């Protein structure tokens, strides 16, 4: 499954960047994130309860912020598994200066296995998009509150 999205922030990349690599911020903005504990350099163990309405699944996995080029790019690598199956995803985040703000592009792909993949293919794309939107919306609020 391919994921492409673009988000606009009113703050420049240099202001946005620290938030994007701050585990506390990431943990608080990742929808359903219950825990994000460091397990290595830029790598974290994560516990997520991911869900929309009644459809929920608890996933345990890792989040790695690889190939960091502050304040312009990094690669987010996520692996998770739970009762409903597994998710392995990878997304390149690209931050471009844009009229005093930032244009943040996301280019990613995810492999989803288990029950969700088997019966929920029609909803996967927009579910992922919804979660991503939620994450960046939260981040935007962080930039506003400082």
């Amino acid at each position, binding site marked *: 499954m391919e994921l492409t999205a673009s988000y606009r922030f009113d703050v420049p990349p240099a202001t946005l960047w620290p938030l994007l690599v701050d585990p506390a911020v990431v943990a608080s903005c990742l929808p359903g994130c219950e825990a994000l504990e460091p397990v290595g350099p830029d790598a974290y163990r994560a516990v997520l309860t991911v869900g929309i309405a009644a459809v929920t699944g608890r996933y345990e996995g890792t989040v790695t912020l690889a190939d960091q080029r502050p304040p312009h790019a990094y690669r987010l690598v996520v692996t998770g598994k739970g009762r409903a199956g597994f998710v392995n995803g990878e997304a390149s985040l690209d931050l471009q200066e844009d009229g005093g703000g930032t244009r943040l592009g996301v280019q990613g792909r995810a492999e989803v296995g288990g*029950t969700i993949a088997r019966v929920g293919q029609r909803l996967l794309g927009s579910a992922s998009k919804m979660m991503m939107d939620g994450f960046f919306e939260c981040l935007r609020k962080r930039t506003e509150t400082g």
Partner: protein
Amino acid sequence: MYPADFAYYRASSVQDAGRLLSEHPGAKLLAGGHSLIPLLKLRLAVPPALIDVGRIADLSGISVASDRLRIGALTPHAEVAASSEVATHAAALADAAGQIGDPAVRNRGTVGGNIAHADPASDLPAVLCALDASIGIVGAGGDRTVSAGEFFLGMMTTALGEDEIVTHVEIHSGQEHGSAYAKFPHPASRFAVIGVAAVVTADGDTCRSAAVALGGLLPAPVRASHVEQAIGGQPLNEASITEAAARAGDDLGDEILGDVFASADYRQAMAPVYVARALTAAAARAR
């Protein structure tokens, strides 16, 4: 398949259900169960508790009073589809209710359960949006009414609060207009690949105004305002309907759903076809 364990409470009234909801965080409401039980079976939903509202008597039934059609949340789709009141006052709703799932599903599935679940491929949300329905809600904070357009927020996401319950749907009587629902059903699931509801008010062969809502295409139903504007004031013939329907793409944005059966591009291309079909059928009823 075999659901995971949960606690079970039977609510005796709407108030009782509200109380149970607030006492049991994460609990889900169970009415007909036709949205929830499939998820429980697949263990995609593992709520700690279910609150069965299926026996609350005053939540069921169809009535008409002072040009308002009122449908209780527990009314099964089959009853909506077969109701002469619904056919008279909101024909598109009868069309749509009669195409949900299959006869056995329509016997159990309820209007309230359907809209609270808000599946993007569900039939009723688009129809309720086109009909400007209002949705009655009761919760700890009291009663409130939300328009259908404000109720459906996104994929399986509604304006319904954690401890709120849908009690009924209310629709302004449509005796002076015609409405219809055109559906492209998925060949396996019967869900709407596309579902378009149209409401047309006519002066003879001229469209005075129209309301068109698209389902199946986006995470939540959307009103096709470009189409509505384009057809308003126009003659209700094939050429003008086709021309207006062609504007459907302008109402869709870039979050069109796609899956292995029908891609986003294809759904986008089909939107005008089904808009035209719904408008044509609604126009025929409006005359």
